[in-house]
C-alpha cells in the first residue's frame, strides 16, 4: 500500500514518466518529483488558486487533483508557457504592466488567463474578472492584472500568436 505509484503523462508537451508516493496530489508531484516549482501553493485546500495548472487544457487546482488520476493526461504549468525562448504575450504583458508584484500567485493567474484567451479571443473586462475569480492576489488589487490580460489580447491580435515580434528592453534582445 505504501509503495510508489508510477504513471505516464504529458507535461508541457513532453511525455513524462514519474514515480511517487500514492497519496500525492498533482501539485506535490509537479513540485517534488518533477522539479517544476513554478506551480505554487497557498492553502492546499482549493481556497486560493495559487496552484492552478491546465489539465487537458482546463484550469484546475493541482492541490485537489490526485496524481494517480493523471495517467495519460495533458498538464500545462507555468514552465510550459514559454515556447522556443519566447514568453507568451500574457507573460510579457504581466511583466511590463505591473501585474506581478511578489510573483507568488502569478503562475496561477497566467495559466488561467491563457485558458481564457485560448477559448475567447476577445474577452470583456467582466469576462476576465469572472475567469480569474478563482485566483487570489494580495498584492496588486487586480487592476493591473486585468490591464495586462487586455494588453495581451491586443498584442496577440496585432502580432498573431505564432510570430511575435520582439520588443525592446528584454534580456533576450538586450544589445551589448
Amino acid at each position, binding site marked *: 500500500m505504501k509503495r510508489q505509484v508510477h504513471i505516464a503523462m504529458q507535461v508541457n508537451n513532453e511525455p513524462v514518466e514519474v514515480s511517487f*508516493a500514492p*497519496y500525492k496530489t498533482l501539485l506535490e508531484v509537479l*513540485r*517534488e518529483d518533477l*522539479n517544476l*516549482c*513554478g*506551480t*505554487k*501553493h*497557498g*492553502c*492546499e*485546500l482549493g*481556497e*486560493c488558486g*495559487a496552484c492552478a495548472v491546465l489539465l487537458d487544457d482546463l484550469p484546475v487546482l493541482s492541490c485537489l487533483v490526485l496524481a494517480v488520476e493523471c495517467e495519460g493526461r495533458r498538464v500545462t*504549468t*507555468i*514552465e510550459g*508557457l514559454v515556447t522556443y525562448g519566447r*514568453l507568451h504575450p*500574457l*507573460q*510579457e504583458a*504581466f*511583466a*511590463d*504592466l*505591473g501585474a*506581478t*508584484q*511578489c*510573483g*507568488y*500567485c*502569478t*503562475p496561477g493567474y*497566467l495559466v488561467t488567463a491563457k485558458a481564457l484567451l485560448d477559448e475567447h479571443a476577445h474577452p470583456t473586462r467582466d469576462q*476576465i*474578472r*469572472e475567469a*480569474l*475569480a478563482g*485566483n*487570489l*492576489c*494580495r*498584492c*496588486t*488589487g*487586480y*487592476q*493591473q*492584472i*486585468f490591464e495586462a490580460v487586455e494588453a495581451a489580447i491586443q498584442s496577440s491580435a496585432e502580432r498573431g500568436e505564432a510570430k511575435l515580434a520582439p520588443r525592446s*528592453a*528584454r*534580456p533576450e534582445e*538586450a544589445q551589448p
Partner: protein
Amino acid sequence: MKENTLRLIGKPRRRVDGRAKVTGQTKFADDIMLPRMLHCKLLRSSVPHARIVRIDTSRALAHPGVHLVLTGKDFQVPYGILPVSQDEYPLQPEHVRFVGDPVAAVIARDELTAFEALDLIDVEYEPLRTFSTPEESLEHEQPRIHDYGDRGNIHKAVSLAFGDVDKAFAAADEVFEDTFFYQGNTHLPIEQHASVAAKDPDGKLVLWSSTQTPHYVHRAIARALQMRPAHIRVVAMPNGGGFGGKSDPFHHEIVVCKAALLLDRPVKICLTREEVFYCHRGRHPVLMQFKTGVKRDGTITGVHLKTLLDGGAYGSYGVASMFYTGALQTVTYHIPTYKFQGCRVFTNKPPCGPKRGHGTPQSRFGQEVQLDKIAEKLAIDPAELRLRIVEKPDTLTANYLQVTTTGLTECIRRIVAASDWKTRFRKLPHGRGLGLACSSYLSGAGLPIYFNDLPHSGVQLKLDRSGGVAAFCGATEIGQGSDDVLVGCVAEVLGIDPLDIRAVTGDTDLTPVDLGSYSSRVTLMMGNAAIQAAERARELLADAVSRKLEIPKGRLVFAERRVFDAEDPDKGVSFSEAVCLAEAAFGTIGTTGSYTPPKLGGRYKGGGVGPSPTYSYSAAVVEVEVDASTGWIHVPRVWIAHDIGRALNPTLVRGQVEGGVYMALGEALMEEQEFRRLPKRLSDALVHKFPSILEYKSPTTLEMPEVFTELIENPDPRGPFGAKEAGQGPLLPVMPAVANAVYDAVGVRIDEVPITPEKILKALEAKAAGKSPRYGPAKFADVPWPETLQVPPPWEGGDGKAINSPPKAAKEPARKSPATEAVQS
C-alpha cells in the same frame, strides 16, 4: 540630479525581476529542494493558557522515518524582535500562551511522516485562566501571561501630553468625543512562511527563509542558539507577499537551524495556512477614544486620544505598535495641543504586530470619521475642513515630528475634482454615498529597532570590465520592487541599462546590512545609499575618462551605456571602456554607499516612534451603495491621490497604491481575525474562529472596485530623486472613507471596522427606532494610566524634552539575557 537629465527614473518600466516572476522562476523558500533534505513539523499547543507539566516524545521518536524530536529543553535563550520584549522561545519550555504556541518539533524523512508523529507526542498541561479580551486582562492581574511588562497583564501603558488639552478644550467652540473599535486582521500573504536550514560545506549555518528582515533574524539566531554571528548566514528569499507578517524572527526559523546543526542535514519547514494564522503579528484590535476641540471655522484646538491594544500573547513589535497609534495624527493635521494615552495588554491569542500601516490605521480611522462628524456639525464640507487644517510643510509638530514636504492639499484637490465631489456629496439618492478621508505615513523609521549609530542601509557596487555592475544590498524583495529600486537608482546614475546590473540582495554573508523591508524604509534609505555608491563609482570613471579624453569632468555625461562629452556627444567611450580606464588608473572598481537618517524626534521617552526623514500623504474618496433593507454594501469606485514625492517607476508605484486600496477594502468590509471561546463550563478552548483562506475573507476579482489613482509628484529633498514611500500610506484613508460614505448613503455611523451589512442594518434599525443612528462601542475601557509625561510643544518654548519625570512603573526583566541591549524608546 537635475529633473531634465533623468532618463530612467520616473518612466514606467518593466520591473527588473519581472521576467523571473512571470516565468515562475523566482525561487521562493519552499522551492529549495536539497539532497538529503529532511522535513520539520511543529506541534503546537492545543490549549490557550497552561503550564506544561510533562512532554513525552518517546513514541514519536520511535515512529519509522523520524530523525529527531526537539522540545523546549533544547533551547535556553529567549529572543524577540524588540530588545524590550525578548519573550519568545523557539519551543515553549514551560508556559504556553495561545492555541498555536509551538511546544515540540519533529524532523522526519517527509512531511507526512512528521505530521503523523506529531500525534504521538504526549503533552500534559495544567490549565491557567484564559484571557480572551483586553478587558479581562485589565481586570485580572493574575495569573500573568508574562512575568515582565508594566503590571499584571498590561504590557505597556503610556501617557504623554504636549501642552494642556483641558485648556485647549476650554478654548474650543465645540468639543467632540467619540469611541471607535478597529477589529484585528491579518496579512494573509499567499506564500506560507517557509525556511530551509543547512550546514554549509565549511560547517557553518545557512538559513534560507521567507523573511522581510534577514538582519534581525541573523541576530535572533545568534542569540537563541548562542552562536558566533559570523558563522551564520541568513538568506532572505523573495517573499511571496509579506505586508509585515514576515518581519519578526520566527520559531520555525530557529528550530530548523538547530535541527540542521544537530543532524548535519538540510531541514525544511513550510507552514500550513493554519500555522500562518498563528504566526500572525497582524493588525492589533484597538479600542480608542478621540476627544477633539474645534473652533467654528474647523481649526483644531486640541486632541486627546486614548487607545487600548489587544496585543495577543507576545510582545513582538507591540510597544512600537502602541506608540504608533498615537504618533501620526499631528503630521496630517495641525494639532497645537495633543495628549496621547496608549495601553497594550496581553491576551491568550496569537501575537499582534506590524501589518501594513503599523498601528496607524486604527486611530486614522477614528480621527477621519470624527472629522466627518465635526464637518457636518459645523456645516463645513469635509474636504474644505481638511484643506483648512492640513499640517504645513517645514513644520515641527507638537510631538516633535519634522514635516518636510506635504502634498496633502493637492491630494485633496485632485480627488475632489476626479470624484465630482462638489456636485455629488450629500446629493446622491438615498442608498448611494461618497466619503472622503486623508492620511500620512512614514518613509522609513528614523530609528533602528536596536540602539546603534550605524547606517540603516548599505549598498556596495562592483563594476566589471564587461560593463556589468553587481549591486549588493541587504534589502529584501517582498514584491514591492526593492530590487527594481536598487537597480533603477544605480542605472540612472551610471547611465546604463537596468539589465546590465545584477542585484544581489538580502544575504547576510554577501550584502551590506539593510535593516529590512518594514516601515516603508527601503526606497528612501536604500535608494539614497545606492545613489551615493553609484555617484562614487561615477566619480572614479569620470576621473579616468576625463584624463583619457581630456574633457573636463563636469562636461561628461553618463547615458546610453556611454560616457561622453555633453558638448560633443560623439566624443566619448563606452561604459565598459570607462570601467577599464578607471580600473587601470585606480585598481579594481568597487564603491559603497550608505544611509543614516538625520537626527530626528523629541528626546522624551516614546519620542523614538514616529520620526521619519519624510512623510507621504494620501487622500481618498470612496463611493458606496447600501441596500437599506439588508444593509448590504457594495463599493463600485474609489479615487485616491498619493503624494509620492517622485515615482521612481510609476508602474510599481501605482501597483503599491492600488494594492493598498485593495487590502484596505478587505479590512474595511470583511477581513477579521476573530476568535471563539467555547462555553466556559464545558471547555477552556479559545481558538481562532477560522484559520483558513476560505473563511478569512479576502476580496476576489469580483469585489474589487474600479480604482482611479493619481500620483502627486513634488520631490522631497530627503528622498532618492525626491521619492517618498508608497507601500503603506495609501491603505490608510480607505477604511474611514468607506465609513463616511455609508453615512452619506444612509445616514448611519459605523464607528467600527469592519463595516459589515449586519452592523449597517443594526444602525439602520436603531435609527428607525429613534435611537442613536450608530453602531460602535459605547465606552472606552478603564485603564490604570501612568502619570503623564509633560512635553511642551515647540511653540510653548519646548525643546523636545519632558519637564517632569514620573516614577517608573515597577518592572522585572523577563529573564536575565546574555546579550543585554539598550532599550529603544
